């Protein structure tokens, strides 16, 4: 049904990308500081850092910081912090929600199925489009069912998927990995 794997990358205007190492805690007067703390806790093993990250997210963080943390989670998932990611999959903004779903799907086969199921019934068209892409990255019988059900109710997306399949039929899979799909925040 679908073309070869489509690689997803999200372009963020605000998120910093140079979080190589957890920095010592500094006053969170900037979004970058919050991002740094979240990523540091994410990368630091142990329950103390997990609790710190969980508590900080619960207190509310700027969306850009959350996105940076979710991107880092996607690169190196920590299953014990999946509850944080799943909670952010209910964030009101599409960009945060999308990152959370991608991070959630990266945590493993059973988690990807559930992430795809959540994305497939989302009210936002772009999130449902993400379900389609995630099902390519994390194929499974369950994912296929969720996507088929979604496309049965979303004629526009079904047409889009069919057109994409035609357009990319001869494209090298390696090249697809470099494709970037930009998600615009929805009003």
């Amino acid at each position, binding site marked *: 049904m679908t073309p070869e794997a489509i690689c997803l990358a999200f372009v963020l205007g605000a998120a910093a990308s140079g979080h190589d190492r957890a920095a010592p805690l500094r006053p969170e007067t900037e979004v970058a500081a919050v991002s740094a703390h979240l990523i540091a806790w994410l990368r630091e093993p142990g329950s103390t850092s997990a609790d710190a990250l969980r508590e900080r997210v619960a207190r509310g963080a700027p969306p850009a910081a959350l996105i940076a943390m979710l991107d880092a989670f996607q690169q190196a998932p920590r299953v014990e912090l999946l509850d944080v990611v799943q909670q952010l999959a209910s*964030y009101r903004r599409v960009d945060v929600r999308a990152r959370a779903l991608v991070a959630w799907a990266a945590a493993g086969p059973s988690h990807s199925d559930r992430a795809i199921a959540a994305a497939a019934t989302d009210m936002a068209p772009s999130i449902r489009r993400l379900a389609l892409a995630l099902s390519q990255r994390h194929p499974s019988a369950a994912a296929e069912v969720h996507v088929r059900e979604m496309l049965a109710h979303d004629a526009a997306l079904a047409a889009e998927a069919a057109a994409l399949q035609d357009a990319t039929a001869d494209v090298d899979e390696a090249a697809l990995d470099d494709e970037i799909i930009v998600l615009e925040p929805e009003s």
Partner: protein
Amino acid sequence: MLRHAAMLALVLGTGACARVLPAQAPAHGSLRAEAVVAEGDVDAPAAALPLVVMVERDRVVAVDPIHGRTRWSLPLVVTGHPVASAYRVILPVRGQQLVVVDRDSGAIERTLVLPGEALTGVAIAEPWIVATVLEDRPGVRGQIMAFSTEDGDRLWRRDTAAPLGVPEVAGDVAVVPAGEQIVALRLRSGRELARLDVEAAGTQGLALERVAHRRGAWFAGAGTRWVDLGGETDATHELLAGHDDVFHATGRIDVGHSDDERVRLWLRWSDVDATPRDAMVLARRAVVAMRLDGQGQPLRGRWVHSEDEEIVAMEVLGDRVVLAREDGAIVVLDDSDGRVVRRIGGGEPIRGALVLGAPPKIRRNPRLADSPRVTADLHRLLQDPDPRLLPVQRIAADLLWRDDDVEVRRTVLALARGQSGPHDAATDAADTLQAHAQRLIATRWGSASREELAASLAQLRRRPAFGRVDEDFTPLVQQTVRSAQPEVTAELTALLLHPGTSTDALVGIVDALGAIDDAAALAALTTFVQRYHADAIVATESRAVQAAATIVLRFAAGGSPAGVQARTALRAIADDPLTEPALRTVIVRGLASLPADGDRVSAR
């Protein structure tokens, strides 16, 4: 020999009446089939003449409540509850006797001597008087007997193995509670015609004190708990649920007028089906008239009336409510709005009264306008410090809580939280009223029926999701403010935190949670504000986040643990340099206006 045998057979045949009525016997017959009563059986002209028979300490006085004239008086010490027909008044007096008096003239026609240890109850329907008494002989717990009103002859009597309740007479049948059963006897002969099991008497502890016949239907019970004897199921009607403790059971002995009667429930029955639709509750010196819902619960106040003296009797005659005061005064109210139509000054103090006259008028239009002052009067009643009014104050709280106007219901919330109330000191009445309000606010509010509330809740449980028909939650959310049940709070907070909830719906949900004022919403509201306080888009796309913060501030003013937590969360948001500026302003100003220590408030 044969003649003797025939005589014996005849005696034994009619002496079926002499056999002891068993305490428990197989059910048989049909009460409805046997006790057929035509609606016009009462002598209308005579019955329409109103009369108030007032029981003084050692005298009975009959007063015309229209003209304020004494019709007659008798030097009698009345020890039980009088009953009356269109022509006679029966007065239980000392010495286990019944004095039969001409209703119009007061002339004593005769005195009937009763057997047994004590009177249980009396009923009259011309030409019969039926009385039940308590007995204490081996195998015999009671007796029931019938007398002729014309010559006073005792027509028959029967011993019973079960204690009896107060009888009712209708047509040519006497119906009486006997243990856990109801027995119908032919008035002419005392022969048992029907016997009915009342399962609720055994399984639910329903007290079978008396039988009542209303609009072709038979009921048995006491106080606020009654069972329809002709119903398809043995379901008990529990009217004014939660208030039955104030209506005292009279037991098997008629001890005459007592203070317990000054808390009384009067019911008006539907003319469509035999179900109670209107009620009046008398509590000492106040009367609250109300409309009941389909489950017999207070739905809407009609009017409130109070006196400065205790009221010992209350009855509805035609379209008037007649009250007899302890000082012998008579007050006549208009049934529709409770306004005073007439006052008749009192004489000697009275212990009780029997109010006689035309039956209550059928109110064909159940939507008749209530007193425009009723809501204000109910509020005022709640502020009265007299502990004797506690029964009607509890009902007043119920009625205000069933109002669709959230502003009207705030009184009950304030009462539950100890923020208002009638009693300055920590009295038992104050504690009881507050506890009642606390129980009340944990139940449904507004006027919607249980079925309507269940349907609304089921709709609210749906979540926004692609593939479902696009639905607007706004009308449903608005409805919860008018009438809903506490479970809606969880659904509203779930919708609050759901990403698919539209911005417009979000504002309505926050406003509804603010109006409902349920502390169970505090955690979700705080989460909502925390989650988006640093999100410039979500915090400004609508007023939802600021409105939620305002509600959280209101709860933070309280001293409850949840309020303290809310205050801590808000302080952290206020201190966060990344908080959306307009939101920070709201929170900082709100925190500054909070009392330092917080009030001692018990949030719902």
